[in-house]
């Protein structure tokens, strides 16, 4: 939450800017408590009354040595936790007012100039609307903001308020940021959520691996061309996401009253800020979970690992969702969310820079922002709702070639199957066919895709992987 810029209390020294954070001192806690009490005790009262009392606390804060902008900043945050409602009145304020104004124009040519004329208008209109003059005046004035009624206030403790205030101060400062450098030490998923937010906010990043963890240089497209605070609002929005890291360091250049200052802060001060939890809500991981389960039941001989460490290629970052391990071979899989053709092309270009890394991309067709075209990368799997484990297995098999096949394992799996005679007959007559066709034929016997593939392997069929769609896979009887 951001404060109005005139409430940003900060000191500048030697080219640096320091927001004046609350350190939960007694008098600060006292002012925070007072303000919270006022909001609590005025539920049901008029806004005007609440505002007058809040102003009083601002003066008191000033008297005991607080910056009045501090008290005003706290009040600002508290107002954001309230709900006001229009007062309940006999007739709608809009109707009352328009009637009164129109009558004054009709009767006196635009306005009343003395008390006599005024009461004449009010009486006429009250009579017409069938209410008393007092009720009319109440309805007339109900349009004013200070007549609104405080209906709810979301409570918090004084210390929570001060922590919120500290966060808001920082965000208000970053509102005018030209760029931001964040050093974070976080898990793969947390990185993914952070970068998801970087992209969602229309920002750009360059990543670098450091001893600390990952360093992200964050700004926007136009930052390369002009010095601009344009992305400051979004950088401020990103701040809480960065603070979810175990350890973080932030440095930024911010503009303040026409000059540029440096700003620096680390997680050593995180006790000053609210505890921010990783927000997974906007990040739906069901696709990953379902896939993880299905792959494990596949019995592929590959060990699957969730959220492996991020990979850095030159200046960009890959956060694979899974790693598949077999012997000394490691293959990564990244699931791509919203994408455009250009995005995929860029991604692939970056992928080619990752030397000695085996990467499969799984692309959700439903999240396409442009048409799919041939991208000339063999390890792409397109899927709709569920990422099919067998198709991933098909790709993984390419990396198996060098290794001895663990035949015993497969043999064992298939022995469990009790095959109906129709299936046996079908398989015996089969010479060559598309895999997709076989899967379709055997579906009615309750065989899943995975089981069909296993079965074919056991029966000595050769499976030729010409591409990654099941339509591109040819099954051939081998007579060796």
């Amino acid at each position, binding site marked *: 939450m951001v404060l109005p810029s*005139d409430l940003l*209390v900060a000191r500048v020294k030697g080219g640096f800017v320091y927001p004046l954070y609350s350190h939960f001192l007694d008098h600060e806690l006292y002012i925070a408590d007072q303000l919270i009490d006022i909001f609590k005790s005025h539920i049901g009262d008029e806004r005007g009354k609440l505002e007058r009392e809040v102003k009083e606390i601002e003066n008191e804060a*000033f008297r005991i*040595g607080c*910056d*009045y*902008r501090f008290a005003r900043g706290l009040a600002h945050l508290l107002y954001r936790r309230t709900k006001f409602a229009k007062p309940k009145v006999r007739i709608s304020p*809009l109707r009352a*007012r*328009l009637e*009164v*104004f*129109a*009558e*004054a*124009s009709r009767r*006196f*040519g*635009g*306005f*009343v*100039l003395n008390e006599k004329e*005024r009461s004449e*208008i009010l009486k006429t209109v009250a009579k017409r609307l069938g209410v008393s003059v007092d009720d009319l005046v109440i309805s007339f*004035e109900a*349009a*004013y*903001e200070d007549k609104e009624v405080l209906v709810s206030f979301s409570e918090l403790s004084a210390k929570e308020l001060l922590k919120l205030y500290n966060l808001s101060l920082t965000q208000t400062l970053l509102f005018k940021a030209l760029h931001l450098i964040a050093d974070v030490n976080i898990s793969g998923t947390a990185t993914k959520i952070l970068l998801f937010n970087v992209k969602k906010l*229309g920002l*750009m990043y*360059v990543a670098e691996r450091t001893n600390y963890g990952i360093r992200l240089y964050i700004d*926007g*497209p*136009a930052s*390369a*061309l*002009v010095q*601009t*605070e*344009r992305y400051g609002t979004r950088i401020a929005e990103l701040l809480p996401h960065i603070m979810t890291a175990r350890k973080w360091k932030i440095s930024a250049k911010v503009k303040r*009253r026409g000059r540029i200052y440096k700003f620096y802060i680390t997680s050593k001060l995180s006790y000053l800020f609210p505890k921010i939890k990783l927000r997974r809500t906007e990040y739906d991981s069901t696709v990953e979970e379902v896939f993880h389960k299905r792959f494990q039941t596949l019995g592929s001989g590959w060990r699957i690992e969730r959220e492996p460490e991020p990979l850095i290629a030159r*200046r960009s970052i890959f956060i694979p969702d899974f790693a598949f391990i077999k012997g000394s071979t490691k293959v990564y899989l990244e699931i791509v969310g919203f994408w455009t053709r*250009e995005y995929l092309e*860029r991604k692939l270009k970056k992928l080619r820079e990752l030397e000695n890394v085996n990467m499969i991309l799984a692309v959700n067709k439903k999240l396409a922002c442009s048409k799919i075209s041939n991208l000339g990368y063999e390890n792409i799997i397109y899927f709709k709702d569920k990422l099919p484990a067998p198709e991933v297995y098909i790709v993984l098999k390419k990396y198996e070639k060098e290794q001895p096949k663990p035949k015993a394992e497969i043999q064992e799996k298939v022995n469990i199957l009790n095959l109906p005679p129709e299936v046996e007959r079908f398989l015996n007559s089969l010479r060559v066919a598309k895999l997709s066709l076989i899967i379709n034929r055997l579906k009615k016997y309750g065989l899943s895709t995975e089981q069909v593939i296993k079965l074919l392997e056991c029966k000595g069929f050769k499976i030729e992987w010409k591409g990654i769609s099941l339509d591109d896979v040819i099954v051939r009887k081998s007579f060796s």
Partner: protein
Amino acid sequence: MAPIELIYDRGTILLRSTIGVEVPHFFKFDERVNAFRALAIYYLDTLRFFKEREYEVIDHVLNLVEGKLVVVRKFWLRSYQNEALKAWLMNDSRGVVVLPTGSGKTIVALAAIAHHRCPTLVVVPTLELMDQWESKVRRFFETNIGRYGGGRKEMGFITISTYDSAYINAEVLGNKFKLIIFDEVHHLPSSGYRQIAELSAAPCRLGLTATPEREDGLHIDLSYLVGKIVYRKGVKELSGKYLADFDVITIRVKLKSEEKERYRQFVRKYRAYLRKHGIKIRSIKDFENMVMRSGLDREAREALLAWREARRIAFNASEKMLALKEILSKHRGDKVIIFTENTDMVRRISKELLIPEVTYKTDDDERRAVLEGFRTGKFRAIVTSRVLEEGVDVPDANVAIILSGTGSRREFIQRLGRVLRPKNGRAVLYELVTASTGETRVSRKRKKALGENGVTL
């Protein structure tokens, strides 16, 4: 050689396949993406550059809003409006048209849209102007209209946006339109808003204003952002024939003796503080510094409060209310607009004199009803703070009363413009100034604007 590809990326243009190609100077190499990048405003220059050198270009920049536009009503342009349109078309459909408030700038812009019949973005300063533009577009065209601002985000063949929304959404809007119109274009050169123009690839640009000049001097950037001034006419050249003649009457109001005493007391206190600390207030920045100091410094805060109080007394002298009533008594039945800087004063006048108020706090339904009622004559007076300052049509008003205001020249002319709508008879503008206070200086300053625009009193 491979053709050069131009790609739009969130307000900028990226160049691809540039190995061995000469790149225009406004492109910079962006290491983040390994490509040359430029602000979208250079789109046309980029195309021209490569055309001159006969490079093959694949252009993916514009991704125009789909739709069509049918002109359903004939345009009748006055001779100067026609001249303005021609001058703009002759300048490759770029540039600024300067015409006085009330002379029908909007119709020039609508004629420009009718000429090009292309996806157009119209940028306006207020929600009020958005409404007004929408109804005008509906009158002349059959097309789908989009709105950005006031909580809405809809793209249309003609899209109307506030400056704020256009700034925030510049990345998205930047390649969707061929023509971009800036109403009240003097707002554009400020450090934020200018990005609406910089991040846009729209090849055709039109700016409209009565007063392009800015006190910060940034109006020189208009020719880069929109194009040069292609046509300019002042109040003097059009008044009489197209605009109402008008009188300006200054009324001096005296402070009551107890008000005078309090005023002097506050001014003394404020000045004493400045003297003691050797502070000179020469600019807004000096003043801001003092405000900053008042955060913790009791003396500074008290001096500042004294200054505010003195100003409040001068601007809201109780005699002003009397003087206002006296003026109003001569104008029963006329169409009157009262301007005052102070929102409390607006409320007081509205409540006491039963005049509808229009401020930023007025709710939308009421504001629309009041303005509509004022147009039709159902309401004959309005009291307002700053909302009606700019370009909002309030036809037929023939009396304006300035109760208090800042020294801003633009504000003054715009307020004057409210009563300068073409009509029969003369218009009157009153201003109330509190004698022997700082307000007289403020009044002198704003009236300088009259001289500049060639108005004789």
